[in-house]
């Protein structure tokens, strides 16, 4: 049975293909269109998925959209009516926005693929999140919590899912919280207040929080209060997201927290103003964590299950995830590599397969690499045409060469196999560097990423070595598999891991298992043999404002215009002339053995 999942129109759109119960491929539209967080209908992603699988659209048994668009429209219209007459400005915007394209999803899909309307199905937004979290996870039974800004009406759901011995799966969402009472919207409101981009820069608030003190928790509690049944409700008078398209916080919010930050103003922690912004971030982060821990603790008591699957954009908050693991009572917490709306494309397809069609549940490979592959020969071709130093090496020589380069403080662009599905670079489209010194972090920020200094870089370490350098609780390695948790760096290693240790001594560590990324695992081993510290800095292979690279050519163009010294795609290695000369001077010339092909223009 061939099922295509589609998510579109709000954040990062995506498509995913499931054949006979097994994911075959999945890709976000931004990776193909090169527009960051592309929310457009994912025509390119759909076409790539079908091409990759060699399927014609007519061979699809179902196309599943990740939410019910008319129900969402109903929510938008109802909220506008409830806010009458204050919503008079947002009403035209909301109607044009929805009626222009978003409610006609069935027709758009049918027209694009030329398939019957009867093949087009819909799932609930949070059911898609839940399916994306549960079905790919290696667990037989789990409690489920999904939380994001808003789906149709739901903003947070709780439920449970099981795989029966006969292969049948059950996924039940038992209760929900409804808009406007939303943890995601609370966090996004602070994101906007702090001058960052909503639905994009929430992780900057999390990074900034480490610089502040949660001294405004009492004030944040005025915005969100707990209800007698253990849920929560927002005090809507402090917010405008439910009535306005342009502003998410009200005048009362500003009275409570002070003037908002303009996106162009610097955050200077030496000033009272800068510290106020950091304290705001720390306070909302603390409240978010407290509420999530309470909700998951109650869910654990209710279900008695040992595993929890987290879905929705809120599950990208690694600090909160780590606290849930430590304090909720669950032994294991599973967060998929794409917990946000892009992941719903895969979730919708799996939900239709397992629940709607009742197909038996199959074990899904536990990795995030479902996107377009990179071609080593394409990189060799473009490097040859552009007159760059390149070589094609066998596996052992390549690993040794790259480990040498990293050990001598070179920055490596690392491309391998299919790209990751989701926002994290997990070793197939990564920039790798030595993690030891602050200077490396500053160099990456200045020459490559062009981003704010307060944002930390992440380390990558093998499963075998993770506990030596990071204080991982039981289940921490699992959470670190897709970089979903933030954990303390062991104090004795913080100086030697300065480039990846955040100001509060934590790191968003990726824990690599040999089976998931064998090549990266070998590289970590080789690097460890040279430096005595088998940990690397791993950041996404892109520059600020651009999506992560997909093809060899995109990797090459990024490498050429920023400070990356060495570029690897499959078996091909390209080295900048300056870096190559320095490597030769340091006695680490191009490998003499293992060269399959080389070129120097």
């Amino acid at each position: 049975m061939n099922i295509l999942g589609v998510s579109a129109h709000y954040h990062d759109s995506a498509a995913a293909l499931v054949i006979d119960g097994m994911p075959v491929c999945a890709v976000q539209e931004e990776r193909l269109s090169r527009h960051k967080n592309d929310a457009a209908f994912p025509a390119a992603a759909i076409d790539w998925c079908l091409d990759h699988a060699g399927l014609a659209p007519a061979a699809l048994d179902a196309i599943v959209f990740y939410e019910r668009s008319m129900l969402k429209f109903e929510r938008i219209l109802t909220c506008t009516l409830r806010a009458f007459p204050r919503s008079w400005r947002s009403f035209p915007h909301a109607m044009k926005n929805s009626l222009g394209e978003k409610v006609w999803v069935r027709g758009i899909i049918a027209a694009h693929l030329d398939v019957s309307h009867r093949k087009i199905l819909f799932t609930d937004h949070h059911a898609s999140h839940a399916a994306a979290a549960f079905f790919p996870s290696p667990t037989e039974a789990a409690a489920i919590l999904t939380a994001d800004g808003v789906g149709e009406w739901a903003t947070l759901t709780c439920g449970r899912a099981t795989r029966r011995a006969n292969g049948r799966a059950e996924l039940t969402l038992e209760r929900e919280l409804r808009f406007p009472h939303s943890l995601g919207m609370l966090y996004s409101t602070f994101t906007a207040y702090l001058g960052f981009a909503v639905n994009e820069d929430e992780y900057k608030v999390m990074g900034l929080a480490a610089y502040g003190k949660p001294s405004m928790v009492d004030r944040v509690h005025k915005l969100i209060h707990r209800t007698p049944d253990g849920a929560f409700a927002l005090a809507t008078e402090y917010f405008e997201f439910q009535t306005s398209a342009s502003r998410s916080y009200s005048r009362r919010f500003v009275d409570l927290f002070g003037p908002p930050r303009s996106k162009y103003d610097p955050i200077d922690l030496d000033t009272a103003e800068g510290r106020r912004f950091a304290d705001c971030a720390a306070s909302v982060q603390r409240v978010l964590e407290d509420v999530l821990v309470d909700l998951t603790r109650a869910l654990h008591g209710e279900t008695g299950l040992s595993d929890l699957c987290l879905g929705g954009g809120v599950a990208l908050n690694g600090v909160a995830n780590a606290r849930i693991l430590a304090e909720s009572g669950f032994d294991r917490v599973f967060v998929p590599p794409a917990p946000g709306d892009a992941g719903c494309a895969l979730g919708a397809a799996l939900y239709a397969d397992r629940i709607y069609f009742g197909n038996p549940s199959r074990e899904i490979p536990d990795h995030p690499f479902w996107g377009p592959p990179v071609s080593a020969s394409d990189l060799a071709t473009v490097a040859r045409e552009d007159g760059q130093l390149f070589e094609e090496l066998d596996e052992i020589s390549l690993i040794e060469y790259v480990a040498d380069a990293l050990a001598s403080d070179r920055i490596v662009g690392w491309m391998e196999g299919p790209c990751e599905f989701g926002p994290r670079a997990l070793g197939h489209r990564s920039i790798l560097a030595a993690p030891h010194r602050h200077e490396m972090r500053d160099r990456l920020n200045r020459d490559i990423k062009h981003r704010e200094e307060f944002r930390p870089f992440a380390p990558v370490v093998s499963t075998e070595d993770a506990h030596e350098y990071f204080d991982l609780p039981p289940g921490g390695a699992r959470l670190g598999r897709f970089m979903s948790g933030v954990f303390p760096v062991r104090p004795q290693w913080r100086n030697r891991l300065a480039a990846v240790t955040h100001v509060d001594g934590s790191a968003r560590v990726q824990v690599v298992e040999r089976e998931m990324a064998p090549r990266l695992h070998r590289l970590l081993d080789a690097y460890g043999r040279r430096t005595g510290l088998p940990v690397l800095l791993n950041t996404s292979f892109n520059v600020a404002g651009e999506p992560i690279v997909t093809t060899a050519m995109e990797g090459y163009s990024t490498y050429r215009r920023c400070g990356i010294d060495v570029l690897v795609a499959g078996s091909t290695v390209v080295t900048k002339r300056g870096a190559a000369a320095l490597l030769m001077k340091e006695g680490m010339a191009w490998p003499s053995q293992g060269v399959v092909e080389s070129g120097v223009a």
Partner: protein
Amino acid sequence: MSIRHAACVDRVLRPVHRWIWGDGDRRVRKLLAFAEVETGGGRDILRAAEVTPDLYLEHAIDELHHGDLFRQRSAALLRARALRTASIFDGNPLPGGHGLDDLAIGNEADDRLLAFLHIAEKAAAHRFSIYREVVDDDPETRAIFEEILRDEVFHMNYTYTQLARVSPQSYRRQIWRARASRFYKRYLRCAIRCGDAVASVLLTVQYFVVLPPFAWFAKRAERREASGWVSIDRPAVRSARSQY
């Protein structure tokens, strides 16, 4: 080909330009807008470098660098005004957009792309030459315009040379076609804005004329809603074909 003087229209509009650039706030806003346009254009050209056989990479790098220059200058002006020095965030978030002209790189032939770039660079060079003159009270901003103007003139010339090489028979026609296309896209943008404004007016009228009774019902229903958990009892499986 060189740009010594601004275009005729811009010369006539010199007092307007001087008025715009004379104010600190407007100057920062203009620089930030240029930063976005240059960065967006740079990304489009970068895409061309990635998907076409001709390499536009250096051109794209220049445009992205221009975006950085504008952004850094506007951030410096902002900092100077705010009397702030050290910061952990330099106040110049990179925008994530692409160029204004909705350039479909994958669908453009080489000669059309070159003609489009030539026209765009020429227009930018004319415009920047007058901006350079009206910011003579601000040597640092003037220096940025001078540096960028040099690059734009180089880009204008290389795209013209390449175009003549790629399409020796039809390069003039391509340039006229690019001009017409640019004009048409401007018209489309204008028409969309007009349509948008008309739709907003009509919807606003409907809002006040049609919606009040429905709003009354919606508010009444809201008052009856309890806060907290809502149990989910809808039959999800049976409604898979429904958008509701």
